[in-house]
């Protein structure tokens, strides 16, 4: 709270005060009152008047200054009432009480939203759980009763499962609650799991799954990493080129303080203009438009999961040559602590 604006705000009181002083002086002069009396009365009036101003200013300034500066400093401005004391003057009390009520109702609203959001997520998780039962049942049934269309149905089932898992991990990366577990994970075993899941498509499309000698271990959540790699492999399959020797090459680069897992394909590539945006939510880009069936969510979710795990996801590409996606695992202190 600044003094000058405060003073200007009280300009009418000042004018009225000055006017009444002038009138009193004029009355005194009309009655020819002694000059010393006039002086002393005016001094008393002036001093008490100024005193009133200053007291009123100092009573308010603490409350209002704290209110304005604290609400600017806090990253959650709505918590400001917790940082200031209750004011001692009437107006302040009104403001304080109203702010308190507003806060309360806002928090109730937010909590209600949060509750609904949480319930919705719980429902989605339950739904995913339920939908996987018929999925398993169909998969087993077509395997038990082999028929012509077995592979076609299996492929569609795989797609269905992928979409369901995308929702699962979207919910997971959105939740504030931590439900990952960092462990020492053998990269080769995760790559194997992802390979097995995609084996039929890879064989059918005659894409070489070329895993080079990988024996590194990293600290991560193996299920999350499996999903992340799954998204990358899915894209490599989806955006392959119509050439004879399609491949997905997987290898690691070891540096002093990090390990990078590289997944490289010789597919259609990504235009440079799209490259920066592929990790954005709902971004489909040119390839998505040409090939269709792109939700723009896969890489976004993968990127968010990597961020939560402390890995770095990056991408390089050249149209009609290659796409190279790298996951970098840092061997930093954080993991040392967990060890």
């Amino acid at each position, binding site marked *: 709270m600044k003094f000058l604006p405060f003073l200007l705000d009280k300009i009418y009181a000042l004018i009225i005060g000055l006017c009444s002083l002038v009138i009193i002086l004029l009355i005194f002069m009309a009655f020819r009152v002694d000059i010393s009396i006039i002086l002393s009365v005016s001094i008393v009036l002036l001093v008490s008047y100024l005193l009133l101003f200053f007291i009123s200013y100092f009573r308010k300034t603490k409350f209002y200054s704290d209110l304005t500066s604290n609400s600017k400093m806090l990253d959650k401005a709505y918590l400001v009432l917790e940082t200031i004391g209750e004011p001692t003057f009437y107006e302040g009390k009104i403001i304080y009480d109203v702010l308190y009520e507003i806060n309360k109702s806002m928090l109730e609203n937010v909590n209600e939203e949060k509750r609904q959001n949480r319930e919705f997520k719980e429902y989605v*998780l339950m739904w*995913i*759980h339920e939908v*996987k*039962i018929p*999925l*398993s*049942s*169909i*998969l*087993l*049934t077509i*395997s*038990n009763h082999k028929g012509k269309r077995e592979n076609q149905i299996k492929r569609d*089932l795989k797609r269905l*499962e992928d979409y369901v898992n995308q929702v*699962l991990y979207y919910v997971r990366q959105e939740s504030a609650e931590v*439900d*990952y*577990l960092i*462990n020492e994970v053998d990269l*080769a075993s995760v790559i*194997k799991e992802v*390979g*097995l*899941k995609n*084996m*039929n498509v890879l*064989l059918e499309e*005659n894409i*070489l*799954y*070329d*895993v080079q000698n990988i024996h590194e271990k990293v600290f991560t*959540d*193996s*299920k*999350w990493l499996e999903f992340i790699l799954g998204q990358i492999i899915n894209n490599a399959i989806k955006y392959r080129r119509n050439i004879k020797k399609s491949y997905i090459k997987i290898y690691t680069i070891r540096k002093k303080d990090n390990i990078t897992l590289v997944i490289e394909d010789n597919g259609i590539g990504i235009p440079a203009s799209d490259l920066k945006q592929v990790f954005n939510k709902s971004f489909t880009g040119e390839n998505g438009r040409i090939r269709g069936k792109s939700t723009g969510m896969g890489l976004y979710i993968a990127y968010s999961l990597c961020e939560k795990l402390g890995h770095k996801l990056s991408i390089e590409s050249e149209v009609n040559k290659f796409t190279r996606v790298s996951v970098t695992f840092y061997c930093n202190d954080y993991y040392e602590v967990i060890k």
Partner: protein
Amino acid sequence: MLQKCKVYRHIIHGIIINGCENMNKILIVEDDEKLALELRRLLQDNNYEAEILNDFEHALDEIISVNPDLVLLDINIPFFNGRSLLKNLRDVSNVPVIMVTSLLSEMDEALSIINGADDYVTKPYNPNILLLRIGAVLKRSNNASDTLMYKDLIINTSRGTIKRGVDEIILTKNEMIIFSYLVMHKERIVSRDELMTSLWDNDEFINDNALTVNISRLRAKLNTIGYGEAIDTRKKVGYILK
């Protein structure tokens, strides 16, 4: 040579089912009836004796009275949570348990392993992979040896050799994975898909052509010990040992 043995032992994990001994009994703990029935059929088709748990309220008693060689335990079952059932089961029995769940999470997996599960699979499971996992867990619990028998052949999976009398041939890793899989399922036709799954599960990510090449090389090697006709091709279905 010693070095080589080690490598093979590591490589061939998960494909050795002791099919030549008595049939293993597997108990299915799954409350979705249709799924349980299909699962039983899959297991029976693959030469396991399979039973479905009926009484979820007294699950523990039923498991003990059935006395299975392996339990496939779903986490979400009525009355008991699968995990607490596992905990109670571990107080009285060491029977191998594979946990089944639909929400894959590292936390779930870790908790199950701590509670004494031997492995963990997530729905929807690929049947071939599920069978491989079951085989691997049973092999571990039965302490099956690295040696398989087929007629008068002695197959050493960890050394990668086949002996017939004084003759011995050495197989590559891929050939051994294929041949031992065929031997372990000698009573039925093995699909290319199964062989492929078994190879990929052992980190051999080969393609269709390579599988064909491997099989013809394997045939050629078997020919040198008089078993050139052993692997029979069933068109569009797969292979079977004669």
